[in-house]
């Protein structure tokens, strides 16, 4: 788990909820990514890889349980970090 893979990418954990879980057909996946990546780029990669295009415009991401407010910002990732795919919420 602690070793980087050959291409310089690291493995992070992706969590899927609600509609995104249904589209991805899993609630959890390991995903290889560059350690520094623009949030919007990461979202795009996840949409492509996990068939999320139906909801791509309304997804937001959370990094280690904190919302990523701005898709333009760079995220600094560590091995085993947690990225959650958050479709529109509807608690209450």
């Amino acid at each position, binding site marked *: 788990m602690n070793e980087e893979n050959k291409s310089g990418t690291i493995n992070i954990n992706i969590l899927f909820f*609600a509609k995104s879980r249904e589209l991805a057909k899993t609630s959890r996946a390991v995903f290889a990514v560059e350690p520094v990546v623009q949030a919007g780029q990461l979202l795009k990669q996840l949409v492509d890889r996990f068939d999320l295009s139906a909801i791509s415009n309304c997804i937001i991401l*959370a990094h280690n349980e904190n919302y990523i407010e701005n898709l333009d910002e760079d995220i600094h990732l560590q091995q085993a970090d947690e990225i959650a795919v958050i479709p529109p919420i509807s*608690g209450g």
Partner: protein
Amino acid sequence: MDYIKLVSNKIDIQQVHNLIVDDGCGACSMFVGTTRDTFEGKKVISLEYEAYENMALKEMSKICSELRTRWPILKHIAIYHRLGTVPVREESVVIATSSPHRAAALESVSFAIDELKSRVPIWKKEIYEEDPVGEWKENKE
């Protein structure tokens, strides 16, 4: 005290009230969200809730901090959210606060349910009589 909880069974209203009532408080306010039986003419059988549990608890805790900043007079805060299947008429969320005076209790509960609906990562799917696959909802307010 802040009482924050995700639960999988029926929420006991009296029990939540007992958590927040306090010798020094004259006012307790409570909001209870329940499952409605209809949506746009379709008959709803139940709601299915799921949460990003750790983050949901964190966000609920941030709401408590926010309430205490805005209404420092508040004594106790309880935010309970149920997960899993919630049948029609049963509680999905209970928010309660206590305060020496009533304005803070009333205003803070109203603020807290708005915040919860806009930032706590919880999702509900409505299961309809004619459509047991159901539909993921989206908070609009």
